[in-house]
């Protein structure tokens, strides 16, 4: 039978185990010894005991004789009162015992045990005087194996799943080149050193901002969540790395707590989880935008390699220059094409003009009187240049010129034709 590798109550006493033959025998011996000492010997029934006195005496007896015991059994009827105290029953095949776990101890439970779950409880037997009830005051309750922790994880995971907080579609893209990386981790651990080393090597221009917090122990989860929220509120980082180095399941537990999961899910800044544990996936890993197996891997994922970036810049410059050159070349071609188009259309225009002028010349010639003279007509012209068109223009004795093709013939009217 294996039990939790860690206990939820650090520094708890390590009492001898009950549930083994040796343990039970030792207990029986202790009780027998007490009887031998005469403590339990009351031969005559004494009169007039009050109920309170009996219960008080019984309680002293029970508390006085039983050491702290680890008791194994099944949990039933586990309830957590509003006060924070927890009440349940431990039972085996034939018997049961009422148990109470006070608030301070109950707070360390990762979750409430499931009905019928096999557990072991460390507690002191007592008697609740007001009711005369025999009960076990439990300080530590552990599931078989890592039962309670697993159960707590499963329950929280199911809850976050149901809210959609672990959905792959919810994961945001990380910035390609963050100017500032926010670190949520211990200021003293190796994690800070590892991340710094990787970032300085790959992307030395990147600024690092640390919000230091404890990453294990009680209250660590709250500190981690507060740090994530502070980054979100201040907006001073482009991406967050939340993590710690490796450790036991218990060491990593803060990263399995709901406050951390919610802070990551609500972070306006993308989050890389870096809980240095390759095999176990924490709740923080499930909710984060990217899960890195180690802090160094988280840093590698967060920043691009400077040399690759420089090569990319050179490529971009090449593309731009080639693009501009092609555009200029295209411009030259366009100009050449346009110039030849203009030249051709100018030629066409000139040819059209020439043709039109030739046609106009022909038309003018046809209208010219000179053409009529060519054909043998003559034009009588008075000395004042008037053309003589009618009979009455020709009076006896009138001298006029008769224009023929090659000159003017002087003529005089001799007789009246009337």
């Amino acid at each position, binding site marked *: 039978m294996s039990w939790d590798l860690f206990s939820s109550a650090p520094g708890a006493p390590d009492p001898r185990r009950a549930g083994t033959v040796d343990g039970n025998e030792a207990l029986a011996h202790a009780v027998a010894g007490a009887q031998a000492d005469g403590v339990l010997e009351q031969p005559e029934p004494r009169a007039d005991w009050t109920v309170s006195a009996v219960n008080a005496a019984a309680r002293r007896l029970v508390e006085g004789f039983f050491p702290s015991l680890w008791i194994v059994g099944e949990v039933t009827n586990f309830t957590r009162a509003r006060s924070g105290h927890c009440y349940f029953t431990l039972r085996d095949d034939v018997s049961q015992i009422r148990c109470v776990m006070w608030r301070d101890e109950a707070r360390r439970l990762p979750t409430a045990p499931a009905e019928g779950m096999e557990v072991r409880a460390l507690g002191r037997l007592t008697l609740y005087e007001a009711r005369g009830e025999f009960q076990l005051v439990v300080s530590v309750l552990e599931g078989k194996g890592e039962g309670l922790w697993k159960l707590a994880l499963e329950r929280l995971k199911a809850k976050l799943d149901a809210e959609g907080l672990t959905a792959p579609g919810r994961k945001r893209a990380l910035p390609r080149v963050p*100017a500032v990386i926010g670190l949520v981790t211990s200021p003293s651990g190796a994690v800070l050193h590892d991340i710094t080393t990787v970032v300085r090597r790959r992307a030395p*221009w990147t600024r690092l*901002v640390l919000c230091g917090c404890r990453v294990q122990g009680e209250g660590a989860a709250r500190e981690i969540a507060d740090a994530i929220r502070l980054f979100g509120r201040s907006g001073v980082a482009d991406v967050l790395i939340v993590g710690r180095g490796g450790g036991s399941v218990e060491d990593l537990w803060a990263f399995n707590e709901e406050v951390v999961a919610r802070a990551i899910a609500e972070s306006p800044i993308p989050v890389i989880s870096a809980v240095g544990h390759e095999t176990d996936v924490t709740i923080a890993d499930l909710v984060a935008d990217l899960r890195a197996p180690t802090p160094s891997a988280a840093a590698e994922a967060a920043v691009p390699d400077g040399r690759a*970036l420089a090569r990319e*810049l050179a490529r971009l*410059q090449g593309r731009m220059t080639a693009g*501009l050159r092609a*555009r200029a070349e295209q411009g030259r071609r366009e100009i050449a094409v346009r110039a030849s188009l203009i030249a051709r259309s100018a030629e066409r225009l000139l040819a059209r003009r020439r043709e039109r002028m030739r046609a106009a010349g022909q038309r003018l010639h046809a209208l010219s009187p000179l053409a009529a003279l060519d054909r043998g007509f003559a034009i009588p012209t008075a000395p004042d240049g008037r053309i003589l068109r009618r009979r009455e223009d020709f009076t006896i004795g009138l001298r006029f010129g008769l224009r023929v093709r090659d000159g003017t013939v002087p003529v005089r009217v001799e007789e009246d034709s009337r």
Partner: protein
Amino acid sequence: MTEEQPTLERALERLDEIAMRLEGGELELADALALYEEGIRLLRVADSALGSAEEKIQQLTADGEGFRLRPVDAE
């Protein structure tokens, strides 16, 4: 994260866009030239950003409702 200088991230995005538009060849020559000049300016910014080195780590602490950034020793 100063206002007047684009971040490397923004510069790279814009450079990619500029390269793509220049390669597209649909631009007026004057626009192409203007884009090219903008690209060269961004390349210079990105190049000098790549060459710079941050040595110090800053510490973020809560300050009431606000926050404070102050330098801490790196290692």
